[in-house]
């Protein structure tokens, strides 16, 4: 167990190092001069020179990367040169919002998708209808879903607010319901279909036939023989879904005016705000790696064969 964690930790650090270099490099290579945007509406050559000097925009790539890396190792994520504030203070409020949104959406996706997939696998008739509805959800872009939801439930019925993340747990729940639904709509199909396929496969297994012919109650069969075994592909998908949601949250954050990591990342990238892009990107990379590790752990619990092999 300890070995598992150690190995995963080492992999995480290596991944972060490589990712940080690649991301910094690509941002550096990307065309665009951030100095102009920093100058607001009145950039003269003097002003631009000033800005480039002040933020060391003319320094060579490796120098700047090294400065940044040594800073991070000391716990200093650097300063956003667009907002002239510490990156950590800019990220703090946003992390909370994005995490809340993603967890909420994940709960909806899994809480709706898995039972739906399970029952549609067990009941043929329901199966086709569910497939169609969820496929429509999958085809609906998150932005379209967001606008429809806002128009109907926020502006039309007034049940939910149009924008903002809210403050405090209950207020947040209220503000983030429509965004979470918009985000979940496209992913529910995915989790439903994977669950359905996995359960269907288990349904056809010999041990299920055997259990049934031996008179074991159906609900028990579903729980212990079918579902538990079907869980492995489901947890894998769940892990990837959650990690992917963070990236998908960008569009929903824009539509609902939520200040989250996703929209901040897009904004910072378009402004070449290096420190911010680095910090958020590395946060995302870490999340992916950790999510993967958690999924492997869970699968190890579910299927001892995987545990013995060390990692799947």
């Amino acid at each position: 167990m300890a070995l598992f964690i150690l190995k995963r930790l080492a992999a995480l650090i290596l991944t972060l190092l490589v990712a940080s270099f690649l991301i910094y490099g690509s941002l550096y290579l990307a065309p665009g001069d951030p100095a102009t945007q920093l100058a607001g509406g009145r950039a003269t050559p003097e002003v631009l020179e000033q800005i480039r000097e002040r933020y060391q925009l003319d320094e060579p790539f490796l120098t700047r990367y090294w400065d940044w890396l040594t800073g991070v190792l000391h716990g200093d994520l650097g300063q956003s040169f667009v907002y002239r504030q510490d990156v950590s203070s800019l990220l703090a409020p946003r992390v909370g919002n994005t995490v809340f949104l993603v967890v909420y959406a994940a709960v909806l996706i899994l809480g709706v998708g898995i039972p739906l997939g399970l029952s549609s696998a067990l009941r043929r008739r329901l199966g086709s209808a569910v497939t169609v509805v969820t496929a429509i959800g999958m085809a609906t872009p998150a932005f379209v879903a967001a606008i429809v939801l806002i128009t109907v439930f926020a502006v039309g019925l007034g049940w939910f607010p149009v924008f903002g993340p809210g403050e405090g747990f209950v207020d947040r729940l209220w503000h983030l319901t429509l965004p979470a639904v918009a985000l979940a709509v496209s992913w529910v199909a995915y989790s439903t279909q994977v669950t359905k396929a996995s359960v269907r496969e288990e349904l056809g297994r010999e041990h299920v036939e055997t259990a049934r012919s031996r008179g074991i109650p159906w609900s028990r069969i579903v729980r212990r023989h079918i579902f538990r075994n079907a869980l492995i592909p489901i947890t894998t998908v769940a892990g990837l879904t959650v990690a992917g949601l963070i990236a998908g949250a960008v569009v929903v954050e824009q539509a609902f005016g939520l200040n989250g990591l996703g929209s901040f990342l897009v904004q910072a990238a378009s402004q070449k705000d290096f420190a911010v892009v680095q910090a958020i990107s590395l946060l995302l990379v870490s999340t992916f790696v950790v999510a993967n590790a958690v999924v492997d752990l869970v699968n190890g619990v579910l299927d001892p064969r995987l545990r013995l092999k060390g990692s799947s």
Partner: protein
Amino acid sequence: MNVLSTSSGAGRRARAPRLLALAVILAAAALVLCGALLVACGGEDEGDESTDATGVELQSTTPPADGLVDEITWNLGFGEPTTIDPHKAGDYGPCFVASQLHDTLVRYTPDWELGPGIAESWEQVDDLTLVYTIRQDAKFWDGSQVTADDVLYSLERSADWDTGSIWADFFASVESMEKTGPWEITVKFSVPDELFNKEMATSGGGGIVKKDYVDEVGHEAYGAGTTVMGSGPYKVVEWRPGDQITLEANPDYWDPNLVPKVAKVNLTFISETSTITSAILSGEIDGSYEVPATSVPALEGAPGTVYFGPSLTAVSVMAARGDGLAGDPDVRKALSMAIDRQAIVDTVFNGHAVINKTLTPPSAWDPEALDIYEAAYAEIPGDEPDIEGAKALLEGKEGLDTPLVMAMAAGDEPELRVSSIVQQAAKDIGLTIELKPLQAMDMANVFYVPEYREGLDLVMTWGWLDIPDPLDYTVLSVMETSYFNWTGYSNPEMEVLLNEARETFDPATRAASVVEAQAMYTADAVTIPLVNPHQFLYMSDRISGAPSSFAYMWIPGLAMIGGTE
């Protein structure tokens, strides 16, 4: 009971789920179509029901209201400000917020009348000497007096590029600035400058900060977060990054007419058009200035009122280089003649704009010499498109089938529509324009970094004058050394006129010089002017009183708002 069985009974049962599935498909398809339609129609002109321009009164002020209000939400449509330091702020959001927090040396009314600010009076002692008398009752939020030292410090800060100020060019003709009495500042000029005092009404030029405070926090940090010390009617108490800036009323403000009636203002940063519209319709946003022209029709049914006022915004097309088709004045003139400006006013701005035939729009004429400007403007052609005349200009020219590449801001609906109309005009006279949408940063760079103009012939430009004085703009565009002169246009005779004008204090004499120069640069089509959009303002029914002219950029308009109940 194997689910995969195909007994005869199952055959009949199988039809029902298929019908059910079909019904579900149809219903869902209808839903998606509706959603798609909603998105498509969401922020757009609803077509034939466009508002009649002549039915809309232009106003600079809105009905006053006296009620006290606890809290309102005001939206900054261009997103989160990058700074609220008046000397570093150059864009809509930053300038607007900075103006609520900081007083300026002198101050405009919403009708562009220049009056006292921190300076209770001023005197143009002679052409080269300007003396300001500083008021003695102004206090910063921490209770300390606004002194002549603070004023001098602020002016020097604005005049110095090294502090991060982007307004130093206002002080180009200044020779010295000194404190010449306990409450007196004297500014001496190397050449007379009639623009200077007016520019001191902008928060960029004349914004007053506290010397000791800035010395302590440093130039860099000032204006980030809540690191601000002003004397204005509102103070900033919280800045939640990405979420909102919270302003609170300053009950001890020195001007009794501008003591705020709204105790707390939450400034939000929604820049997504559909979200702004929805938030206004649902009543979550109480007011906003910056809503794209193309979204205005969608606000019908909002629980509030839309106002339109005079604006110093100028929409035009500029030539990106001196060679190629766009570098040929005849081609520019022909294109200018072919454009249907009224169509832009009607279809893009729903009537809430006026056509503009020259570099500086009618709203920017010096209020003290209107008749001279009006007379000159009437002489300028362009009220209607003249396709035949344009074609005649192009007769015999070679290489007209080379496409002209025009840069415009990607994703900007109004810009796209205006560009399309310009494209059509080009087509009407045998020219071809290719649109090149650029992302925000690249678009900004086009204006300030020459390399970004390579490969471009034309640039769609949404610009604005800071104050109602054409000279504020001419210095940027038509002089040989002008920042936005990319064609290498050089007209020494015209420059002499403009320089003279800048040194002339008498409005009529000055106006005569300006319109003479104007005739020259307009005839040479240095820029292709299009329209002057009106200033937009939305206020919910709860509140009223905010200024509805472009002057809102420099004056503490939030302090003019009161409750209507």
